[in-house]
């Protein structure tokens, strides 16, 4: 028993000597109200050490990712058929995040190895789940590149290389701008510490994005009482139409 405890202690010791992340965020919830126009989140942290930084290893690097809720998507390709450009092929992707931002201290391929990228699922290519799409169309990979290109152009997917500031190998910070076309849900924030292209510590946080006030009320009513909602929309339209007509009559009279 004692031997086992010693063994565990021996195993635990190098782990304790390693570097760990202590992280914080400027806010852990975002409220979408009627005047919502995007939001900026400051993600910061420090590297906690029980011992001096290890000798003879590469410099410390940091990667921060923010990932919005994922949904299945259809990626369609237009081809020219009989002179007309139409959707000619489609691939279903099981799960793609609605938003993805990745910020690093340096060029991604210099600080992260493919194996660790695969193991921790860090970059967007590893976050998107597309199992068995090769069976759906030839050149299925082109569809994934198309998806990345479309969402990058829409500013939904971003790679911000060198946008994490690291001070004295201890303190780091980065600003992530959340766009105005934000969807509701849990936004996963992940922080990775790396040395020699390997992940040495990681941590996860969550930002809750929620509609509030009038936005919340409208959204809930539309989901829970669709018929009432539809009729209410009509009543609103009718009153507005009549009101404008009456107002103009007064103006002319």
């Amino acid at each position, binding site marked *: 028993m004692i031997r086992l405890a010693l063994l565990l202690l021996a195993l635990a010791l190098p782990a304790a000597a390693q570097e760990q992340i202590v992280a914080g965020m400027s806010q852990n919830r975002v409220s979408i109200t009627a*005047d*919502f126009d995007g939001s900026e989140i400051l993600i910061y942290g420090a590297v906690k050490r029980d011992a001096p930084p290890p000798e003879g290893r590469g410099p410390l690097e940091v990667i921060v990712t923010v990932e919005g809720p994922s949904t*299945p998507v259809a990626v369609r390709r237009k081809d020219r058929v009989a002179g007309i450009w139409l959707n000619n092929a489609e691939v279903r992707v099981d799960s793609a995040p609605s938003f993805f931002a990745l910020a690093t201290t340096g060029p991604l391929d210099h600080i992260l190895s493919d194996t660790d990228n695969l193991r921790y699922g860090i970059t967007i290519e590893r976050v998107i789940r597309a199992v068995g799409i090769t069976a759906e169309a030839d050149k299925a990979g082109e569809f994934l590149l198309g998806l990345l290109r479309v969402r990058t152009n829409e500013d939904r997917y971003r790679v911000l290389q060198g946008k994490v500031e690291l001070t004295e190998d201890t303190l780091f910070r980065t600003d992530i701008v959340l766009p105005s*076309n934000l969807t509701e849900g849990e936004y996963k924030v992940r922080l990775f510490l790396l040395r020699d292209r390997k992940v040495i510590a990681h941590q996860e946080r969550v930002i809750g994005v929620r509609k509030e006030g009038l936005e919340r009320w409208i959204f809930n009513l*539309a989901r829970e009482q669709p*018929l009432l909602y539809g009729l209410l*929309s009509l009543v*609103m339209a009718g009153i507005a139409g009549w009101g404008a007509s009456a107002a103009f009559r007064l103006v002319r009279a």
Partner: protein
Amino acid sequence: MQVYLPIAEVSVNAFLILGLGGIVGFLSGMFGVGGGFLITPLLFFIGVPPAVAVATGANQVVASSVSGVLAQLKRKGVDFTMGWVLLAGGFAGSALGVWVFRLMTEAGQVDLFVQLSYVVFLGLIGAMMFQESLRSMLRARKPDGPVRRAHVHSWVHGLPFKMKFRASGLYISVIPPLAVGALVGFLAAIMGVGGGFIMVPAMIYLLGMPTKVVIGTSLFQIIFVTAFTTVMHAVTSQSVDMMLALLLILGGVVGAQIGTRVGMRLKAEQLRILLSLLVIAVSVRIAVDLLVEPAEHYSVAAVLP
């Protein structure tokens, strides 16, 4: 001023939406078309998802049509009897249209189908109206030219079930108006519009109604068709955005009132030539989209799990 739309889930400039609503309302009051064929493409353009644009566009058309009808009512520009007959045909056609729409969705080519219907019907109707109104304008310039009779008797007048349409001054069979209503309802369901741009020329050229009552009667039946569409979309896909609709409506109802008054100042031929040019422009715009190679071949759409 930015406003976040709760259903569309995008943030838009409130004044831009008010302006869009105003322009479309103006045209709708002037020509008696609902403006659905304009508002939907314009909303796509500013980043509103297609499903929300179609459904919310329908809701906006309800408001501008109510506003337009009330303005027409004062000058006795609504033939209610004709309106109800057209509407009866409209609901039948609309039900058939919804069914065909579902078949096309299952076949996966609904976008193309809708775009092609736009090009074909808008192009055809626009060209026909343009040619006809140009001819009657030229005729008006030459006073000694042959006089065209107001009512040309054709096979239409030999059909049974005749009915009196007092406001239009017509005594015709109910079959043509029912058929026109059904055709418009069918196209409206497929194209997601009120169908005014088809209804207006159909009433003038097929039914021989006087231009005075055409706009009001068209708007009258558009109210019901688009109200039906709005509720259907709200229930089946929850894609009506009330916030977006409110902004469009505020702009639209004001625009419709101004449009109606401008429309009264213009001559019927001028009005028709302007409407035909507008219809042709939209048709050409959509045709260009189909024929020119897009910059990005891929598109992404969210699907239900």
